[in-house]
């Protein structure tokens, strides 16, 4: 009989090797690279914390500095490929294999490196899917995480940006792995314990905060009138009739427009208290006017947002906050909430095909998924009823016995028919298919599959795909809201007219929306400064959004 403790034994050896560079749990930042060479073994599975918001950037720099003779063939399992260092690991021969979720700013470089065979790709996941695999077949040997501060026992305070940290630590610390945290400071006592110290093996004091990207801030000054029209269509044509209370918004100007229209246009429609009361949402600054007007009962967040800290601390009835008063975010729990406890996901995309598949990749950019495919999918494990879920299910399957009829989550794609540089939102074939071909992927990186999407909203109107009874109808419903794009101009006018009579397609005039109302005066805030004023000075916008 062999040993049953090989993993814990290996951890003991790592602890002993790392201990030579540490005082207690503290490792000095100037010894970081030698320390990492001592504790990380070739072939280890390593989770380097970083998502679309926070980054363990000092540990990333330290890891890039290791000697590839000593540390090589690492298998990186991490939420985000965001920093240049994340890819430098592959250029330098330190890492070989990758399983990840999101790669926004590195989307072009990662595509080139994948095509050149410099990275052995496992798969591109949604966040929740990757987290799930941390507990089944991608459990890390080493976790390199980020927190605000630590005490000498290793108790960590992450502050509002808790995000992925508890999930990574849970998977690593309880399965023989080693947890190493970067913190700005080691203090006598942490403001609250986000990660208990007995799960943290080493702490690196860096003297600087971990990096955070203000990804969810949209400047109201940049919202266009067509986006306002799209937002009015969504509110009047979807939120109101389905009575959507539990909701998730993706990033984008159309959803920002919806948030800014709730206390004005939504109020005028008498919808306050009836829609948009409970949210799975990052702390979008554009939701401040609706919160201040009493629209929002509560919000659970995946992460934090730069500048929103004081505002959230002052609104604990709305946000989840800890004993220290600051926000507690948690990506895994919020993704689960978005999947199972929200009745609608609404977000933007770059390309939609004629069956309704959508994708944000182009032939040169592999942006990854983040959380959208998780939130933007119909969870077949759901069993609790709600008004919107039942109504959508009935529209999809009117003839089925109600007691046996599965409801449907509303999955809405919203956007103008033309995007940047006059590119069409609607395409015959997704670039994702070209990319999959180029990179020899078994699956095209589709953000939201056609069988999950229920509605498409453009300035031309709403296509309700739940009411389509054939793939030909579906195609004409999509062409019918594709406006003056090539695919829109190729529609069958008579069929589109029939679909409109059946309310599969609804134009602004069918919903009583006056096009003169597509006007910026309806926005509850028209600039970042307006948002700051609406927050009573509690919102502190990052400098790149301060243009006054």
């Amino acid at each position, binding site marked *: 009989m062999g040993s049953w403790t090989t993993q814990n034994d290996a951890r003991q050896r790592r602890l002993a090797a790392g201990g030579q560079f540490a005082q207690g749990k503290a490792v000095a930042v100037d010894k970081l690279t030698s320390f990492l060479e001592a504790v990380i073994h070739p072939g280890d599975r390593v989770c380097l914390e970083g998502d679309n918001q926070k980054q363990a950037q000092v540990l990333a720099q330290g890891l890039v500095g290791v000697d590839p003779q000593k540390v090589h063939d690492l298998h990186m399992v991490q939420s985000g490929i965001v920093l240049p260092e994340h890819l430098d690991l592959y250029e330098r021969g330190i890492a070989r294999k990758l399983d990840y979720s999101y790669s926004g700013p590195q989307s072009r470089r990662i595509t080139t490196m994948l095509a050149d065979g410099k990275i052995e790709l496992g798969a591109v996941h949604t966040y929740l899917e990757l987290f799930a695999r941390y507990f089944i077949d991608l459990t890390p040997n080493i976790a390199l995480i980020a927190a605000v501060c630590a005490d000498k026992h290793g108790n960590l305070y992450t502050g509002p940006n808790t995000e992925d940290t508890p999930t990574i630590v849970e998977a690593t610390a309880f399965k023989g792995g080693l947890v190493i945290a970067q913190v700005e400071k080691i203090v006598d006592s942490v403001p609250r314990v986000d990660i208990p110290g007995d799960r943290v093996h080493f702490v690196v004091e860096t003297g600087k905060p971990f990096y955070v990207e203000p990804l969810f801030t949209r400047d109201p000054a940049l919202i266009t009138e*067509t986006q306002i*029209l799209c937002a009015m269509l969504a509110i009047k044509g979807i939120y109101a009739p389905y009575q959507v209370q539990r909701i998730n918004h993706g990033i984008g100007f159309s959803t920002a427009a919806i948030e800014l229209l709730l206390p004005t246009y939504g109020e005028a429609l008498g919808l306050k208290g009836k829609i948009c009361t409970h949210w799975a949402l990052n702390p979008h600054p554009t939701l401040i006017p609706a919160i201040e007007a009493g629209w929002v009962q509560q919000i659970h967040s995946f992460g934090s947002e730069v500048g929103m800290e004081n505002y959230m601390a002052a609104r604990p009835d709305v946000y989840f906050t800890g004993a220290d008063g600051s926000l507690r975010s948690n990506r895994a729990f919020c993704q689960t909430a978005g999947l199972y406890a929200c009745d609608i996901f609404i977000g933007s995309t770059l390309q939609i095909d004629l069956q309704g598949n959508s994708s944000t990749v182009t032939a040169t950019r592999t942006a990854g998924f983040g959380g959208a495919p998780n939130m933007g999918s119909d969870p077949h494990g759901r069993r609790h009823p709600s008004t919107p879920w039942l109504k959508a299910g009935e529209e999809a399957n009117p003839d089925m016995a109600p007691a046996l009829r599965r409801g449907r989550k509303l999955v809405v794609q919203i956007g103008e028919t*033309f995007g940047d540089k006059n590119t069409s939102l609607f395409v015959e074939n997704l670039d994702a298919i070209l990319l999959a071909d180029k990179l020899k992927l078994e699956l095209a990186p589709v953000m939201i599959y056609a069988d999950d999407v229920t509605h498409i909203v*453009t*300035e031309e109107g709403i296509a309700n795909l739940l009411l389509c009874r054939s793939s030909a109808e579906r195609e004409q419903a999509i062409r019918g809201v594709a*406006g*003056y794009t090539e695919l829109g101009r190729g529609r069958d006018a008579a069929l589109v007219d029939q679909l409109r009579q059946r309310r599969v397609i609804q134009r602004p005039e069918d919903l009583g929306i006056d096009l*003169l109302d597509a006007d910026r005066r309806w926005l509850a805030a028209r600039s970042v400064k307006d948002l700051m004023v609406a927050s009573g000075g509690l919102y502190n916008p990052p400098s790149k959004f301060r243009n006054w």
Partner: protein
Amino acid sequence: MENLTFTLKAPKAATGTQKQALTGVVASGNLEVLVERVREPNVCEVNIATAAHGFAPVWQAVVEEFVARRAAGGLRISINDGGARPDTVALRLAQGVRLIEENAQ
């Protein structure tokens, strides 16, 4: 500058009594639309001055659909375009008709 003119049969005459209406602004990605009630009620004339060359087929599609969908008979519409996308053009045209539909004070 490219100049385009479309004169189309209009199935629906514009309602209301306003003589003219102006909407939009001349700016990059935007356009200004002047609407005047000067044509016979079954005709709509659209004159376009645009900074972006080579988009005549798209303009034609936008204008034809506009005249078919909206009550645009009797109107002469002058567009000063700063390279607006077709969705913005369609919105402005529809807004121009809405404005001229209002009754004169």
